[in-house]
């Protein structure tokens, strides 16, 4: 049978003209409006390219000795060399690569695990929530760096030591994400669209993956981004005290640590890795700020 319905009221100009297309395009526009974030994104992208691609193109490798010992920065060695003849530029590139890998691993694993943990706790509520959040509290009260040092010191040897360092850090940071996501879910699950989905008979995984997480994504991404910066610093600290990445592999933290004694005599050995740490941490933080503005859904949803 045919059904009758009123003529479309959707004449051109009827649908709000502002922000055409998906909400994502609006987000990109908002992000680009944030100057520092845009610049930071460019800087960070360059750093990543330099570290991951540049390292293999550079004519020295981080683990081969060069004939030059302790030369200051020059065209041949842009960041100089250390006492044993390693080319610092190659080492910094390698260190940056490791540090970023670790940070992404930490942010990814803790973000994913923490989000699901928090979402499940918030959505089921009741006893499940109580038990899950007590576990979170338990992990949170561990003195993170000390535990990380002990754990990483015992397990992190050999080729894959960087990955183990990352996993240990992730195991200590996911509770922050879980807590945040749980709070978010508690408010999101009261939304009418969740009630609507329940009324169709939607399952809890469906609600989590179709409704809760997409809407929590903005906040999660911002948190995870900031976690990248935190993880870089944590890895640095861990390597600095000797429990992180083990030589012959290297990381920015390890470089700073190894070269701290040279600060007066060959300052470049200390300052270049330091500069990279600062650059990464700052740019990631600004990107986080920009994302926060861009993903703020309170601005994109306007009432009629």
């Amino acid at each position, binding site marked *: *049978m*045919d059904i009758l*319905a009123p003529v479309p009221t*959707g004449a051109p100009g009827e649908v709000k003209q502002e922000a055409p297309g998906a909400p994502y395009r609006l987000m990109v526009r908002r992000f680009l409006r944030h100057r520092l974030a845009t610049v930071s994104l460019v800087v960070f992208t360059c750093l990543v390219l330099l570290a991951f691609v540049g390292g293999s193109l550079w004519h020295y490798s981080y683990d081969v000795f060069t004939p030059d010992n302790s030369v200051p920065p020059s065209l041949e060695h842009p960041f100089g060399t250390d006492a044993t003849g390693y080319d610092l530029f190659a080492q910094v590139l390698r260190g940056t690569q490791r540090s970023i890998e670790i940070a992404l691993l930490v942010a990814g694993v803790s973000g994913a695990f923490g989000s699901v943990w928090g979402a499940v706790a918030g959505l089921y509520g009741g006893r499940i929530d109580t038990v899950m959040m007590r576990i979170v509290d338990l992990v949170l009260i561990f003195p993170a760096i000390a535990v990380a040092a002990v754990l990483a010191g015992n397990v992190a040897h050999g080729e894959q030591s960087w990955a183990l360092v990352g996993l240990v850090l992730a195991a200590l940071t996911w509770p922050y994400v879980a807590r945040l996501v749980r709070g978010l879910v508690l408010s999101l699950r009261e939304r009418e*669209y969740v009630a609507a989905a*329940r*009324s*169709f008979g939607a399952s809890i995984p469906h609600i989590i993956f179709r409704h809760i997480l997409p809407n929590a994504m903005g906040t999660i991404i911002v948190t995870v981004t900031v976690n990248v910066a935190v993880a870089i610093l944590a890895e640095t600290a861990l390597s600095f005290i000797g429990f992180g990445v083990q030589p012959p592999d290297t990381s920015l933290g390890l470089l700073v640590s190894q070269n701290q004694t040279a600060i007066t005599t060959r300052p470049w050995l200390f300052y270049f890795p330091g500069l990279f740490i600062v650059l990464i941490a700052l740019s990631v933080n600004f990107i986080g700020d920009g994302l926060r503005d861009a993903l703020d859904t309170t601005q*994109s*949803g306007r009432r009629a």
Partner: protein
Amino acid sequence: MSEEEILRVEDLSVRFPGENGPVQAVRGVSWGLREGEVLGIVGESGSGKSTGALATIGLLPPGAEVSGSVRFRGRELTGLPERELSRVRGASVAIVFQDPLSSLNPVYSVGYQVAEAVRAHDPEISKADAFARAVELLDLVGIPDAAARAGDYPHEFSGGMRQRVVIAITMANNPDVIIADEPTTALDVTIQAQVLAALRTAREKTGAAAVLITHDLGVVAGQADRVMVMYAGKVVELGTVEDVFYRPSMPYTVGLLGSLPRLDADAGARLTPIAGTPPALDRPPAGCAFAARCPLARDVCREREPELAQVGEEGHVAACHFSAEVRERSAEEVFVPVSSVRLAGHEAQDVPPGTPLVTAEGLVKDYPVRGGGLLRGPVAVRHAVAEVSLELAAGRTLGLVGESGSGKSTIGKLLMALEEPTAGTVLLGGAPAVTGGRRGRRGRARELQMVFQDPMGSLNPRMNALDLIAEPLRVNGVGRRERRERSLELLASVGLGGYAGRYPHEFSGGQRQRIGIARSLALRPRALILDEPVSSLDVSVQADVINLLRDLQDALGLSYLFIAHDLSVVRHISDRVAVMYLGRIVETGERDDVFDRPAHPYTRALISAVPVPDPRAERAREHTVLRGEIPGASGPTTGCRFRGRCPVFLDRLGEAERAVCRERVPALTERGQGHPVACHHPS
């Protein structure tokens, strides 16, 4: 005439900075407020009605640019420094906002705050006298037991009571002008009636002129002397209420009046919605701002902006090139009922109209009330729903009305299995529905669907229209191809054919609700629960959604449970009506029986409190203003729960009859033709 005017506004414009350049919220409006009169300003959201009025006294958010002239008793106010301006405001203007909390200080008792206002106005008066006067004023605005409650703090009062406290402060200020900005918008009708009565008292006692800003044409019809209609930042019509209501001369006014469902009118008449939405005010159109939605628009309308011009009666002005033509036509003649599109793919019910589809028997829902103590154990139960039985029949609409706290929305959730009933059963097509959890909801989803109140809130902002409508299908395992086809069909059937890829924020409120309705039809349910489906929409859009619901019902033989607080809408759309108070149905029956011959004292009061948008009728009606408010969990638990407010119980009954009300819960009792009432002493 101008010397009688206390406030004169000339060519007032207000601009705000916006994302796409300046937003011209008010565009050159001129009006005057006469000594002692009430001027109603009406318009839909975004028409500039509040901004225009608040701008006259310099109350605007930072960033607003104001131009034009405002003279108060002959004195120019625009350009005055803020200090001067606030002195004028303090001495002569009082403002009642929609949210009374914004004007009350939470750390002082209400008595103190009213007394402060008294003292500010009369520095001679002693503190004790000022307080006594404050109590007097609180009593005047209808605060029960004013002397005892004067020591309470704002948070201890309900919204309606706070609004009355604000009005008491207004009176203490003895202003020349009262500006009331949507003073009753968030309130239930019986409370609205109390606040309007208090406002009237305040006006009569102080002799102030008033500007009443509201979207409710019924309130204007009853309260205002003159009315000004605003559209897209402009005044489009201005005149006495009778002129404007009985001889509207501008299509927008005609449309507004025609789109209102009426409590007092033949419910069969079709509403005349105004298609489209107002223009964006960061790009106001060159000609008539209404041209895009106006059925009478011609080329001249799009080129030249119509000026306000006298249209007949002295003082009645309208801005339309064809106002003479408009005056000769009725709303249906201007907004010719919309033609229809046809769409295949839906099946009508296979059951004859009137067949019971969903039956609820003895539904009860109790919520534990937690104590404030350390352990926070449940200390009591709140009966949200008590022994409610109802039946939804094919092709029919049951209207469920009640004020906040009546439990009407809880019933919707119980039927949808979004909440578990404490007791009672739901039958689908005669068989008991599976209860409990997701299986129960799945079973129900194919029979029964829900449309939610807030179309923005009930649509996931991260999904586009197509995905939104496809979601129930996806959840219920319909394959991708079929899902897509069916969703596109549904989208077209609610008139949004070309917009599958758009996201909720790109639609207007009415369009979003259309998406919500399309989604609710995806599983081809037999019955829909409509929980306040139009209450968040502007009237013209509301009419559009109501018409759509009617068309769908006619075409598909759907059964509706229409839950609403707005009696006019319920009367318009329902076949049967059930009135709820504190969790119980107190009266139910055929629509006209209930509305024309209400028997329960609460129903009578409720109906009398609804303002009708017809000045003469509204003024001639008898209004029962109920005392008190809907009690929360603290209300009486035995006997009739309405007795604290029941005018029959309080004023007319003898002691023996009262004892019955106090001791026995009145059961819904049939008294004649299908119109049971739960009252021991029905009229």
